[in-house]
């Protein structure tokens, strides 16, 4: 004859199993406080047009000789050099150069802060090229709205 205690255990054991599932929810969670740096320097020649080939060549030289050793110090995203290349690509060499001069001046402003720029996921001030392309207000608003989304 089957031991009656065994039957009792058979009934009790599944209940304990379900109990175990609930306690799993309350395990400690390992938290990583290290900042993630998704931005990596890309040594790629931009061949969109002749101007971008020249500017991105200069950018690669700058990355290799200065930026690599100086570190990631630009407070903006995209960085000033990347901004220059993108500005020339999106507009032309003249307008792109003027946009870079303006960006460089803003970079030197000691008082720039959170009230002027939104913060990018890299922790830097987000200052995209399209903000300075002199786009019609309607188009710029749409771009900024899509940026917020």
């Amino acid at each position, binding site marked *: 004859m089957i031991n*009656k*205690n065994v*039957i*009792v255990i058979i*009934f*009790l054991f599944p209940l304990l199993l379900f109990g175990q599932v609930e306690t799993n929810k309350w395990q400690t969670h390992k938290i990583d406080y290290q900042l993630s740096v998704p931005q990596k320097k890309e040594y790629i020649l931009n061949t969109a047009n002749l101007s971008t080939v020249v500017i991105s060549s200069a950018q690669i030289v700058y990355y290799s000789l200065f930026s690599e050793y100086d570190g990631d110090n630009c407070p903006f995203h995209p960085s000033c050099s990347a901004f220059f290349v993108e500005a020339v690509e999106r507009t032309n060499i003249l*307008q792109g*150069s*003027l*946009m*870079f*001069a*303006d960006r*460089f*001046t*803003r970079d*030197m*402003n*000691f*008082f*720039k802060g959170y009230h*002027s720029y939104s913060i990018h996921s890299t922790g830097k001030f987000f200052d995209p090229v399209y*903000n*300075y*392309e*002199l*786009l019609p*207000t*309607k188009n*710029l*608003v749409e771009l*900024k*709205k899509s940026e917020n989304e």
Partner: protein
Amino acid sequence: MNSPLITRFIFLFVFLSLINAQDKNGYFSLENRLKFGNFLFCKGDYIRAIDEYNFVLTKQNNDTLKFKIALAYQKLERYDESENSFKELFTSQQFGSEAKFEYFKTLYLSDKFETMHKRIADDSFIESSISDKLKRLYNLKHLYSSKSIEDSSKFFQPFNQNESIELLKFYVRKQNLDNKSPALAAVLSAIIPGLGKVYTENYGDGITAFLLTGVLTFLAIDNFNADHNFRGWLFTTLAAYFYAGNIYGSAASAVLFNANVRMNFDSDLTLFLNKNNHFSSNSNLFCK
């Protein structure tokens, strides 16, 4: 020895298990899932409410649930799904006209103003009960437009007195948006470097531009005076470059300022209209 006690225990466990099983069947009954879906809908948990409603719809046809699913998609800003769901209800006796109105409202919320205008013009079966609400929506879209509203009396016509008073604040604000002129900003920076930036309220950038251009100009003059012509021309070129960059940047700064003003206005207006449900409530239809 203990056998009667153990037998009682076994009976107790079996009995409790049966009760439990009975309860589970009750929990997941069609009626309870509908109740739970309604609860989730009213609490704003639309994703899970849609799941519950879809399950109930697999067992029975129910226009109310289809309408609520479409409303839920609208609330979730899944406008394409919402449009399609409302379209399916156009022929519904119970929700036909409301579905049509909510369909147009979905087009309005997804900024498809032109489509909305065209569909309203093409639709000859719009009932009088919803035409007033549609007029309101149609007029509200003018507040989002960059063009100024020409005829204010027509704009306020579909709204009652209290609504008109509240909307008047936004109407006046839209007519007097604090925009900056890019041309004026460029001219000001051409006269005094950085002044255009100050005009667009970027004071730090303006001061920096003034100092940078000033220092480079001083260095150019100083080097020319000391007969260092190469360095003189080098600093002259740099000063001219940053001077020109600042003129361009001031114009760009004015454009950016205007875009931010426009965005703040749109954002405040959207918050206000959402709070008032665009003066065309349907969400409280199902929740007290």
